């Protein structure tokens, strides 16, 4: 079991969509995006990071109304081998609205 810190977008119909590393961290690097979130959370700048991500979401033109910064827990071996990884637990750190 392992936790993955990530940012997800909530659409108007309530469904969630995965935000790409470019929207999260500003670059295409996955590890950089994850490390950016981790550093922001550790430094107590999670809300500021969430607003920054929301600003990039607006710039990308996605149909997202809210951004959540969460830690989702998965069984890493089963999650990798499964067709659809099953989330075991979630811890929500911060949520922010996407400006219109």
């Amino acid at each position: 079991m392992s936790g993955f810190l990530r940012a997800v977008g909530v659409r108007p119909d309530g469904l969630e969509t995965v935000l790409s590393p470019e929207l999260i961290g500003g670059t295409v690097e996955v590890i950089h995006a994850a490390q950016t979130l981790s550093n922001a959370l550790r430094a107590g700048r999670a809300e500021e990071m969430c607003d920054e991500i929301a600003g990039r979401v607006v710039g990308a033109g996605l149909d997202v109304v809210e951004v959540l910064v969460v830690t989702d827990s998965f069984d890493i071996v089963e999650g990798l081998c499964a067709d659809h990884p099953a989330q075991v637990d979630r811890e929500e750190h911060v949520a922010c609205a996407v400006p219109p």
Partner: protein
Amino acid sequence: MRGAAMTTTVEPMATRRLVQRGALDWLLAPAPARRLNLVRTLTVLYGLVWIGVRADHWRNLSRLPESRWRQVGIGGWLAGPPSTAAVTALVLATFGAGVVALGGRGWTVCGPLFAVGFLALTTFGASWGQILHTEHLPALHLLVLAAAPAGRGASATTGWPLRVMTLVTIGTYVVAGLAKFRFGGGLDWLDGDRLSRLVAHDNLRKRLLGDPFAPLARFVVGHPLLLRVGVADRAGRAGCPVGGAGPAGAGGLDRIGLGVPHHRAVDDGRAVPVPTVRHRLRLDAARRTPSPPTLASLDPPAMTFSTKDFGHQWPKSFVENLNRGYRRAWWRRCLVRRRQWETRRRGGDGRRRWRWCGRCASPPPPR
């Protein structure tokens, strides 16, 4: 008459100096200039490809908010992150210097420029919260190559850059291996479980963030035996300087000047023949002359080993093998010394000539 094994009377300081000189001889031993040129070309080419792949990423980093700037390394003197224009100019200048250096022209100018530019770009990339360790080794290698000569036939000075690069590589992987054991899970690496979880974690994270992940990751994680085989990589990294010696360690020690003959006795951990050290000390005293080697210095030593040197507990065949191996090593050094002398006399074209000098007592034994 049976006697006790010989005990050493060589002073520890003399032995230490012998080891230091042997290490220096290994480091400064000549190498073909073409070898250095090839390594330089491949390293610069790798650097150019890396810059081409990472250029967009570095430019994207320059657009991030200044609050995320975490300067490291040589970027510590900067007041703030450089602008996108400055990063773009640095990328173009570094790439241009590398292209010119790749052609072998103006290495004394373009080589250091390329090395410093590459270091600056990778340091900039590491100053935004993510340190990419795969960039460290090429940056260090380029710095070593920047300090190396151009390598046009100067074979006497083209050996040390390659060996320094080797030492840098070894040191990097030793530190990486030890860090894995010290901070990354300890002995859990040995059964492959740690590696399995790491591979699964990394690929699942990419999958959850919508990034392409390794297609073989599922297969590898489902077969733990493959990851146990991968444990040899960790052990190999941590034991790099020792494992690199291995069964040829005694031969390697001979090459660095300890004069230990590669023999089963050494591998079994039995005593090192003491007269070998004494001979090396005499040879080094004769070798300290700055002038080209004279005929007398090229002659082999008069004394060779006999059973009396070791006492009668050693078999005669061992002593014969020792004499044969020692003479062969002496001939090899004789030929190398003569080649060096002729190379210097003929202007240093670096061509390799192997022939019997004709002044030793007898031709070299067959290989």
